[in-house]
């Protein structure tokens, strides 16, 4: 990958990422996040990992970010100024971000990067990838699916109607009828 291409893509990732944090308009922030995700997918694609790139677009840009925007549309008065974060929250998150950036920078600087031998443009065959998911990396793979299952169950527990409420709601429904 030529350095120029890398910097161009890095710009596409970083500028929208900054906009996500700094934008006052939540909807714009969500859209900028998607642009940033697409930039990351472009990095994967240039690193001969088309499968990871496609997954990045499908899962992050196509599903997670869309659900986020969907939640914005369902939330009443999301654009009201009183929903802005307080000065304390802003300071705390700034400190956390700086610490994280410093930590990542330190790891990046101290690591000795190995240059792997270059691969074919189409990357690792999918069959090899799938086999290693189900053999060498089975435990992490299953752990991730367990995490997703936990999230799903948690979401259902939060969202479900209690039996009492449901009865009240249905009676209400009947009462409205002439």
């Amino acid at each position, binding site marked *: 990958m030529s350095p120029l291409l890398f910097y161009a893509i890095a710009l596409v990732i970083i500028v929208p990422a900054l906009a996500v944090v700094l934008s006052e308009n939540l909807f714009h922030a969500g859209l900028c996040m998607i642009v940033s995700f697409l930039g990351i997918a472009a990095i994967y694609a240039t690193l001969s990992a088309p499968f990871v790139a496609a997954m990045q*677009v499908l899962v992050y840009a196509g599903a997670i970010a869309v659900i986020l925007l969907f939640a914005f549309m369902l939330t009443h008065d999301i654009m009201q100024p009183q929903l802005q974060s307080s000065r304390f929250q802003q300071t705390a998150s700034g400190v956390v971000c700086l610490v994280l950036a410093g930590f990542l920078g330190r790891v990046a600087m101290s690591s000795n990067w190995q240059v792997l031998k270059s691969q074919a443009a189409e990357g690792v065959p999918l069959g090899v990838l799938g086999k290693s998911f189900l053999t060498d990396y089975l435990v992490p793979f299953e752990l991730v699916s367990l995490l997703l299952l936990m999230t799903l169950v948690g979401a259902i527990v939060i969202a479900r109607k209690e039996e009492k409420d449901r009865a009240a709601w249905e009676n209400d429904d009947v009462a409205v009828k002439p």
Partner: protein
Amino acid sequence: MASVRNTWIHSPAGEYLNRLSEQTLGREIPALLLMVIMLAIMLVFLAVSALFLIWLERKISARIQNRMGPMLSGPAFLRNRSMWFGGGFQTAFDAIKLLLKELIIPGRADPVPFVMAPVLIFGVSVAAFLVVPWAPALSVADLNIGLLYVISVSSLTVLSIIMAGWASNNKYSLLGGLRSAAQMLSYEIPLLFALLGPILMAGTLSMQGIIEAQRELGVWFVVPSFLGAVIYYVAAIAEVNRPPFDIPEAESELVAGYVSEYSGMMFAMFFLAEFSNMMLVSAIAATVFFGGWAVPFMPMPEQPDLLYTLIGGVVFFMKTYALILLMMWIRWTFPRVRPDHLMNMGWKFMLPLAFLNLLICAGVAVMQAEATAAGQPVSRLAVWLVGAVSLAVIVGGLSLFKEKDRPYHLVSAGGAEKKE
């Protein structure tokens, strides 16, 4: 020998252009220019076929409703000849009219997403066409992850609809966007699982590879996974927001849903995208379930062959258009589905059936693996048998439910009926 054939089928169309230019001009086309040429060909092709499809849709709707449809536009000698010749230029004139109209951006709209949405929706649909295998060696790129690429790129369609719905700053648009997001996210899941079965049987995600696998098996994948084909088709209609799943733009309740505030060419972009998406999902169905360009009763030549490519292209088009016609037929004969029914059907009915279909396809894949291990071809009869038996079992199983207990029963879940 097989390797020559493989490289022939999988080589992208650009290689032909390069070879042609080498023979005539003595040098290859620069990569960037080649990209521009391919993109231009795709755009022109898609725009023209969308215009044609819009005309076709009007004529078919007219036929179904016992009308004539557009009759007067076009050269005089074609007017009032027969229903299918009159009005051939109608959509071309429509396009010109739309191009000349003013682009109105509402004062309280969010301008950047508002303008970006129609561009994005058409761009995404053009990008997804990159891997469609029109004929052997005639796709812009034969990616290793072809089908996954199409799915991941077209998952951005819903994004542009949400953008349009939100940025219009209009409650009907917002409702349309919301409905569309819910619908498209729900139906993406059965769609993916329906495609997973054929992928399992083909052992590859490459579009040309899937066609090649069906040729080797000797049976189209629709036979063992008929259920998958039906689920894919229904989910695909929901994905392109066409009737009976057009609740995001239901005109009787939502004006025009997320397109309410759009005018002129921006509106036309949504329209173009709808028709090119229709073609895209039909082309994918033709590739994955109906054997793509494989010509029946004609042996596949080992070397690159122009005749086979041409006939293969015609076969692919015929399959795609048959599926598009079915979609139009469904559009003009079914009433619109109610949003909660739509959700019920997607999650409680289509998703479990898609899992079942995956199971059947996995069985066929095991059969294939065993036959390969034994060094003999898979018996076609066995595949047909699997398809017939599984279909009979599923239809029989569903008919065992009492009418009102059927999982797809479309009476709403509320208990009001019982109490009366």
